[in-house]
């Protein structure tokens, strides 16, 4: 069952603190560092990319999980926060990714307790099987708000 796949991106320096990113799946955009790291506001940054990679991957895995767990998903929105630690030697590391998904699902004939338990299992599976979440060394915390619509 172990198989490999590769994904690629290409970056090119545009001068000063600017770069241009071409993603393997098509999109391209300029990027910089965040303003607190001598970059620019309003553009894509590596920090955003890291947090977004985990956030988008967990969401896509959760969508898949809701299908496998036969949940009627009404909406999903997740703000995820990455915490950066600046070490004594001035190296930096993301120590934590804190996911706060707000999930609305239809009861669809089941009791709220049964549906909520299934949503939580789907979330656990989403984290477990998310390629990116599975690849990062940051601590991952998931704090969901689950709303069951009758």
């Amino acid at each position, binding site marked *: *069952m*172990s*198989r490999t796949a590769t994904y690629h991106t290409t970056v090119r320096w545009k001068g000063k603190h600017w770069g241009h990113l071409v993603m393997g799946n098509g999109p391209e955009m300029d990027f910089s560092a965040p303003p607190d790291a001598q970059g620019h506001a309003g553009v894509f940054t590596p920090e955003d990319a890291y947090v977004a990679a985990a956030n988008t991957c967990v969401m896509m895995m959760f969508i898949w999980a809701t299908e*496998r*767990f036969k949940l009627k998903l009404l909406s999903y929105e997740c703000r995820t926060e990455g915490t950066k630690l600046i070490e004594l030697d001035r190296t930096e590391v993301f120590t934590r990714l804190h996911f706060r998904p707000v999930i609305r699902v239809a009861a669809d004939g089941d009791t709220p307790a049964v549906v909520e338990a299934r949503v939580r*299992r789907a979330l*656990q599976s989403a984290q477990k*099987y998310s390629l990116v979440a599975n690849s990062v060394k940051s601590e991952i915390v998931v704090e969901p708000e689950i709303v069951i619509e009758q």
Partner: protein
Amino acid sequence: MPEYLETTVDKFIFRVATDRLYASDGVWAFWVESQGNGQVRIGLTDYLQQLNGDVAFVHVKPVGTKLAVEDEFAELETIKATVSLFSPVSGTVVAVNPDLDLSPEIINHEPYGKGWLAVIEATNWQSDGAKLLDPQAYLSAMRSQAEEELKKQ
């Protein structure tokens, strides 16, 4: 609590309970001796549950279903796959694990214990059981299967 044989393939540890017999496709059969009438509890192995991932649903044939050896007795829906499971013994389903409806994840957590699937009133346990693998033989077969999976990369 059963004792286990254990083997490591790549980074994965697989356990095989020593108190039961096995079909090579990863279904175990445990003769419930205390009931004295040839009832056999069946479930899936640690290897099979790890191979297929988190269980979302399991559909076991209802009580009263008559089974021949290799008849499908359950369908497992996991996060990654839908898998048919085949009976290692002939007989009639006399019990289905009632906990599977609300907590199918017990198959992942305790495949040899609380995650059992069904009890079969066996019609020919002596003959059916003789065709199954003992724990050591299953461990070897399972290890070969796991190594084959790894070669697919």
